[in-house]
């Protein structure tokens, strides 16, 4: 087996590109679920973010504007979900699935004029000193800003939930909305804010696929990434750090198995092909084997102040 053709520096760079969209979507969805809301519309919000971000980046020739627009679009779509589930108390599962379908349809409509077009891609950052370090510089410190932003976001979400009062309130709402309500917290308002945050993150994740990972617009291009993000939240037992491990494992093994195939590794392809799913699940289950890892107690339940 000759694996010398795999260049570790390029491999790590590819892994980061592959993991970032799922990480963004998953960390957003984690916050939503922490507040007690199950939004199955991640795929729909991602693809909407992908198309809107692409369109905005092409229109303004600025990928940064594209990402902002994608976040706004994802948030706007999630606001529809928030309105239906939080105000009109519709079933969250059905509404989330509907959101995915609506997002897929909307994006293919919006995306028609953009098929086959090229967009400006995000420049790689050149961090003084760090980027110039041998090997490590290229491997870890020469990516585009969204890679780092996604990591900062994970850290921020972790700190928010662990150390801030607002984070505690959010968790309280997710664990027992009646108690939170009795204490005088605005359950619906808090949940809407969480949903919008999740939508914006999913939008960013989608835009990362259309602006950096592929980079182009193709109908249906997220191809299930939103569902992977949802699954990772569950297997990570609603912990920010584990979500990051999960996303990087999945993205990492996906890219690694493709590289092993390209290098001609003598491992059965069927096994390689299934490995991202297997490895991610096994590792996260082992990590979560001890300690508290239950879902937020009010997850998926509708709340109305009169009940």
């Amino acid at each position, binding site marked *: 087996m000759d694996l010398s053709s795999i260049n570790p520096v390029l491999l790590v760079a*590819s892994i980061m590109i*592959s993991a970032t969209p799922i990480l963004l979507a998953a960390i957003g969805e984690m916050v939503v679920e922490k507040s007690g809301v199950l939004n199955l519309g991640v795929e729909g919000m991602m693809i909407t973010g992908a198309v809107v971000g692409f369109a905005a980046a092409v229109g303004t020739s600025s990928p940064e504007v594209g990402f902002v627009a994608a976040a706004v679009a994802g948030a706007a779509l999630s606001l529809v979900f928030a309105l239906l589930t939080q105000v009109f108390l519709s079933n969250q599962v059905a509404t989330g699935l509907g959101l995915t379908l609506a997002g897929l349809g909307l994006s293919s409509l919006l995306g028609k004029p953009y098929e086959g077009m090229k967009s400006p891609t995000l420049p790689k950052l050149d961090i003084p000193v760090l980027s110039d370090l041998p090997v490590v510089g290229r491997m870890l410190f020469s990516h585009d800003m969204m890679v780092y932003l996604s990591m900062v976001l994970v850290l921020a979400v972790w700190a928010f939930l662990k150390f801030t009062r607002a984070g505690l309130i959010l968790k309280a709402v997710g664990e027992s909305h009646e108690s939170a309500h009795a204490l005088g917290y605005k359950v619906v308002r808090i949940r809407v804010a969480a949903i919008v945050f999740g939508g914006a993150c999913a939008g960013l994740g989608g835009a990362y696929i259309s602006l950096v990972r592929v980079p182009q617009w*193709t*109908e249906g291009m997220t191809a299930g990434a939103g569902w992977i993000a949802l699954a990772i939240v569950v297997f990570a037992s609603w912990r920010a750090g584990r979500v990051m491990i999960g996303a990087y494992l999945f993205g990492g093994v996906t890219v690694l198995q493709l590289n092993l195939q390209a290098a001609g590794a003598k491992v059965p392809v069927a096994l390689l092909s299934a490995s991202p799913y297997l490895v991610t699940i096994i590792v996260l289950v082992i990590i979560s084997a001890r300690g508290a890892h239950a879902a937020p107690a009010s997850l998926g339940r509708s709340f109305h102040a009169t009940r």
Partner: protein
Amino acid sequence: MKRRTLLASAALALSLGTSAFAADEVTAGFIYVGPVGDGGWTYEHNKGRLAVEEHFGDKVKTVFQESVPEGADAERAITQMALSGADIIFTTSFGYMDPTIAVAAKFPNVKFEHATGYKRADNVGVYSARFYEGRAIQGHIAGKMTKTNKIGYIASFPIPEVIRGINSAYIHAKKVNPDVEFSIIWAYTWFDPAKEADAARALIENGADVILQHTDSTAPQAAAKEAGGVITFGQASDMGEYGPLPRVSSIIDNWGPYYIDRVQAVIDGTWESDDTWDGIGKGMVGIGEISDAVPADVKAEALALKDAIAAGSYHPFTGPLKKQDGSDWLAEGETADDGTLLGMNFYVEGLTGEIPN
């Protein structure tokens, strides 16, 4: 009482409706594996559908469902289409083979056409194009143009159609460049732009400077363009927006004439289950313009090869050829028969790696 009348009149209206409908127009249904905007395989099938609409005008109505997963869910989608009154249904991916046969058994009056498969029934015909003819031309250009002597191939599923393409491309690349090596990635998907781009990137990072793809989206083209110094070929559709580089040529599937022909047969009542397998000669496989990035002499050779294949004077699988394990396959001057090609499950000599099961 009231409700019964209502039901009866509804039933009457429904039966009137369907009979009037049947007399007026023929409905042709299409089941697609990806979205119509994939820029490749499904895009071309949809172009064929639009050609049917344009040709027949009001006489034919077409319906389609996109992004239908291969496997059990396909059976539901095809059944739904048959129930909604389609007279002929084209199921346009290999993985719809068994679902198509299963649904066809339940709807003996509906005609079915399954693309790229090999199972037939009285009301199920099969059709495919000899894509391997186009692959021969790609292999020739790839072998001539590679500088690293490494050619990357993004394969989808290990089915005969895909294996034929790999073999044909390899034979012709090897013929013009004995040092050439193929790295093959099995993506296990027809359509997943992010994964296709990742696969292209992995091949390029492992030293390939030519990327051949047997997946449906233009993502590998985008990845190759970003990497630079890599050439690609449009798959199923011209993908001309990526020319002149990285895309230097393409295989174009041209289904329109076949679809028009088969729908006409339904209208005339002459439709019969058949087995169509046409190539460059009949126009079902087109070769997209070879861009200026290809040296003039290579382009001329490629076009000569195309003409020879079209005229039938050259068969891409002509002996002497050995199988990967070194056993003899075709003797000097012998050409492969269609049966072997349709069931091809082996690599030719020189390819490395194993075909997954």
